[in-house]
């Protein structure tokens, strides 16, 4: 069975600072990896995903994540955050070929001026 660990429940940063949100997973088979973002009182939205190919994936709003198979990690990074990036971020994994997602507990990113 797969599992996802998000080590940080909350990450406070100042605006324009870089940030890294950590995600580690465990699985005995090939996986697909996802980052979802949840803004207050909203559902989850896909930020980016890794299925295959290049291990570095990027989102349209400046986030990127790198799949590291040896370290079973899929950390999310942004070189310069904005106030509007304040949200809950969830890492998720699914077995390749299956649709069911297993989510981590989430990391709350708090960006202050």
């Amino acid at each position, binding site marked *: 069975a797969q599992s996802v660990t998000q080590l940080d*429940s909350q990450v406070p940063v100042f605006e324009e600072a870089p940030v890294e949100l950590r995600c580690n997973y465990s699985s005995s088979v090939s996986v697909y990896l996802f980052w979802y973002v949840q803004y207050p009182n909203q*559902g989850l939205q*896909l930020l980016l995903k890794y*299925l295959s190919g290049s291990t570095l994936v990027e989102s349209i709003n400046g986030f990127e994540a790198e799949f590291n198979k040896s370290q079973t990690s899929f950390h999310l990074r942004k070189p310069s955050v904005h106030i509007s990036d304040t949200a809950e971020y969830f890492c998720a994994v*699914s077995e390749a070929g299956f649709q069911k*997602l297993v*989510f981590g*507990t989430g990391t709350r990113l708090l960006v202050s001026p």
Partner: protein
Amino acid sequence: EADIYQTPRYLVIGTGKKITLECSQTMGHDKMYWYQQDPGMELHLIHYSYGVNSTEKGDLSSESTVSRIRTEHFPLTLESARPSHTSQYLCASSGPGQGSTQYFGPGTRLTVL
């Protein structure tokens, strides 16, 4: 933006009442899911469907039931609500193909008194 809707957004109800949480999507997706999300916790899959007349229980045991009579509609029912059912319920859908994105509704926050 994904077209997936949930009603009601908020529901406060007394113990023992029967409730139905509605979920509809207009994207023609075959796969639909229900997740339960408690504050500060990961999302847990409680039900999923891969098409009309197909429903399966998820990883987290739930006293709720679901039905899938139409592609676009995936309601969740609690026959007799209890305070332990207090939670946020998120509905999602996804299209064909491996690793396809799950699109989430805004959620229903249920409080059982």
